[in-house]
C-alpha cells in the first residue's frame, strides 16, 4: 500500500467502523518507522506526545477507554488548528511550551520524559494556578444569561475544556462512560441517579 494512501485512510480513520487488519499492521509499521502521527495539523510530534500524556492523566483508561484510546490528542490538534482563533492557538502552544519549562525547572526533563508522579505534580501546579485565575475573575461581569466568568486566558482551562469535549463526545465516552443512548425512547424528569439511560450532559 502506498504510504500516501495510508495517510489518507488514517486521516479519516475515526470514520471507519473497523480498520482492516492488514491496514492496521501496515499502520504500526509506518508508525514505528516514522515515530510520528501523520494526521497532525498543528502539533509537532513532541507537542502531540505532551498533549497525549496530559489528556491521559486527565482521563485515564479505567474499565472504560481513556483519552489515548479515543484519540483525544487528534481532536485537540484539529480544534487548535482549525477552530481556535489565532490568539487562542498562540496561547495554547505557548502553554504547552510552558508545561515543559516548568517540568524542566522542577525535574530537569521534558513533561513526556517525567515519571507519572512528576507529571501529576505538574498538573497539580497547573491546577493551583487555574484555581487562582478563577478566583481572580470571580468578580468579573457575568456572561450571557448570568453564566459565571471563567479565566479564558488560562491555558490549562482551555486544555481541559477541549480534552473533556474530545473524550465525552467520542463514541466510547458517550456510550461506555456516560452510558447514554442516541434514542432514549422515554423521558423521566426525576429519576434516581442509578438509572440506566441518563440525559446528555455537557
Amino acid at each position, binding site marked *: 500500500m502506498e504510504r500516501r494512501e495510508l495517510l489518507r485512510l488514517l486521516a479519516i480513520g*475515526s*470514520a471507519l467502523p473497523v480498520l482492516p487488519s492488514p491496514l492496521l499492521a501496515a499502520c504500526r509499521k509506518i508508525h514505528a518507522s516514522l515515530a510520528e502521527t501523520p494526521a497532525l495539523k498543528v502539533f509537532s510530534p513532541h507537542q502531540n506526545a505532551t498533549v497525549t500524556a496530559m489528556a491521559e*492523566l*486527565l*482521563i*485515564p483508561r*479505567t474499565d472504560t477507554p*481513556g483519552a489515548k484510546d479515543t484519540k483525544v490528542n487528534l*481532536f485537540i490538534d*484539529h*480544534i487548535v488548528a*482549525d*477552530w481556535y482563533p489565532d490568539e487562542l492557538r498562540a496561547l495554547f502552544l505557548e502553554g504547552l511550551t510552558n508545561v515543559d519549562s516548568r517540568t524542566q525547572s522542577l525535574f530537569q526533563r521534558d513533561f513526556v520524559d517525567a515519571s507519572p508522579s512528576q507529571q*501529576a505534580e505538574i498538573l*497539580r501546579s497547573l*491546577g*493551583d494556578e*487555574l*484555581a487562582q485565575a*478563577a478566583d481572580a475573575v470571580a468578580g468579573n461581569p*457575568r456572561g*450571557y*444569561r*448570568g*453564566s*459565571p466568568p*471563567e479565566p479564558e486566558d488560562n491555558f490549562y*482551562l482551555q486544555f*481541559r*475544556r477541549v480534552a*473533556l*469535549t*474530545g473524550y*465525552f*463526545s*467520542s*463514541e466510547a465516552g*458517550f456510550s461506555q*462512560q*456516560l452510558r447514554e443512548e*442516541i*434514542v*432514549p*425512547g*422515554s*423521558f*423521566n*424528569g*426525576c*429519576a*434516581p*441517579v442509578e*438509572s*440506566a*439511560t*441518563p*440525559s*446528555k*450532559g*455537557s
Partner: protein
Amino acid sequence: MAIPKYDAIVIGSGITGGWAAKELTEKGLRTLVLEAGRPIVPDKDYVEHVPAWDMPFRGMRDRKKLQKEQPIQSLCYACEEVNSGFFVKDTEHPYTSDPDKPFRLIRGRQVGGRSILWGRQSYRWSDLDFSANLRDGIAVDWPIRYADLAPWYDYVEQFAGISGEALGLSQLPDGKFLPPMPLTCAEKVVKEGVAKSFGPDRVLTIGRVAVLTQDHNGRAACHYCGPCHRGCVTLSYFSSVNATLPAAEKTGRLTMRPYSTVHSLIFNSQTRRITGVRVIDTQSRAALEFNAPLVFLCASTLESARILLNSATPEFPGGLANSSGELGHNLMDHIKGGGARGTIPGLEKMRTTGERPNIAYMPRFRNVKDKHRDFIRGYGLQAYSFQDGWGRGAAEVGFGTDFKRRMSEPGPWNFIFEGYGECLPSHQNFVEIDKNCLDAWGIPSLKIHCAFGENEFALRKDMSLAAAEMLSASGAQSIQSFRDTDPPGFSIHEMGTARMGRDPKTSVLNVWNQSHDIKNLFITDGACMVSSGCSNPSLTYMALTARACDYAVNQIKRGEL
C-alpha cells in the same frame, strides 16, 4: 386568455404556508406552493440522530465557516454543526439596519421554512391580548376577539397535536391537549416554592408544545432524543414537512415548487386584483411567472412585507396593497434577555433520563388582575432546568480515575427563568426597501428600523427582578439575575408589518386577513399581527391561516371572490 392551471398560489411553505396548502387543497383548490429554498426529504435531510463523533467538530460547529457565511444565523442556539444548512447563508441574504438599532434576523429557506427549526411552544392568546390595544389606546384595535379564533385554535391543535396541561387561566386559555410531559424535580421544587409564596396567580406548568406524547394522526410519539431543530424522522413534532404538506399532498391537488424565490406580485389596475407572481428560479436564475385567481402570502413577516414593497405600482407607489401607509410598519418582536438563574439544592440523588424537547412555562401574571405602576402588558417566563454535565470539569482542577468517574455523573441542578415580554406596536418601527442592498438573486433587500422602547425595557427589568425573587422563594442558591441586551429579532417572533384592522385607512388587512385594497390577496403569516401579546405566536398564525382559508374558499363558492 389561457385557463389558469392553478386555483391558488401560496407563497412560502413555512408554518402558515403549510397550513394554507393543506386547507386550500383539502377544500378542492388546485394549489401551487412557491418555496424559495430546497426540498426537504426527512429520511435524507433530517440529522437529529447524527452522533457527535461523526461530526468533524464534535458539535462545536465549524466556527470559521459559520463566521464567514452565517455570522448572524449562527447566533441562534438552533444553528448547529449538522443542521446549519436549515438556516440561510447571510452572505446570500443581506439586510441592513441602523448602526444604533441592530436587528437580528434569523431565517430558514427550504420546504418547511422555519417550521423545521421552531421552538414548538404553542399557546392560545386570550382577550387580554386581543383587547389590549383598545384598552390602552395604542395603535389600532384587533378586529377579532378570542371567540372568533377559539374554534380555529381547536381545529389546528387537534391536527397538529399539542401536549400540555389545562390550567383554567383566563390569560392563557386551555386547548385540546395531548397528555403533558412531566416536570423535572427542580421544576417541581420551584413550582411549589412559588405557589407557597405567591399564591395561585403564578403557576409553573409544563410547556404547551407541538410535540406528540402519543401517536397522533399517523405520526409517532416522541422518542426523546432531544434536538428537534435538526429534524425528526418519526415526524413527532409539528412542522409543514412533518404534517401539513403531506396532508396537502394526499389530496392530489398540491404542486410544490422549490427553488422559487418570489420577486414581486403582478397587479392589474383594471380588475384591481393580483394576476400573477414573478419568480426567480434560484437554480437557473430564470425569471418566471405563475398565475392564479387567489394568492396567499405566507412568506414570513419580513419577507411578505418585502415582496409587497418590491411590488410597488404607480397606483401603489409605497408598496402593493398599501393605501393605508402601514405596510412595513409596526414591526414587533418579543423582548427577552431578562431573568435569573440559580441552583436547586437537595436533589443530588436525582437526575433526568431522556431528553425532553420542552421547557416549563409560567404564564403572564403582571397586569392580569393588578395594574403595575412601571409598565403596561406583561411577559411569560420560560424555564429551563438542567444538571451540569462533564463540561463543569474544565474549571475544576481534579484529574485521574476519580475525576473521570465524577464527571460521568450529573452535577448540580440549575434553574433558569427567562422572560418573553410583549412589544408595543409603533409606527416608528418599520422596514423599507434598500435599493443598494441586493440579495444573491438581485432582489432588493430590507432596511430594518426597529428598537425596543421604554415599556419593553421596563418589562425586561421586571423579568429579572421577579425571576430572582421567585427563585429565592423556592430555596435556590447562587441566584444570579441577568439583563442581557438581546436586540429585536432575536426572539424570532417578528410580526406586524401588514396589520389587520377594521379601517382600511389604518390597516393593511381586514378581519379575514384579506387585503383591504386587493380582494384576492390574503396574508396570514406574522405580518398580520396587530399587537404582539407575550406568548409565542405560531399557534395563532396557524389558527388565523385556517380561518382565512375557510373564508376565502366560501367567498369563491359564493362567487364573491
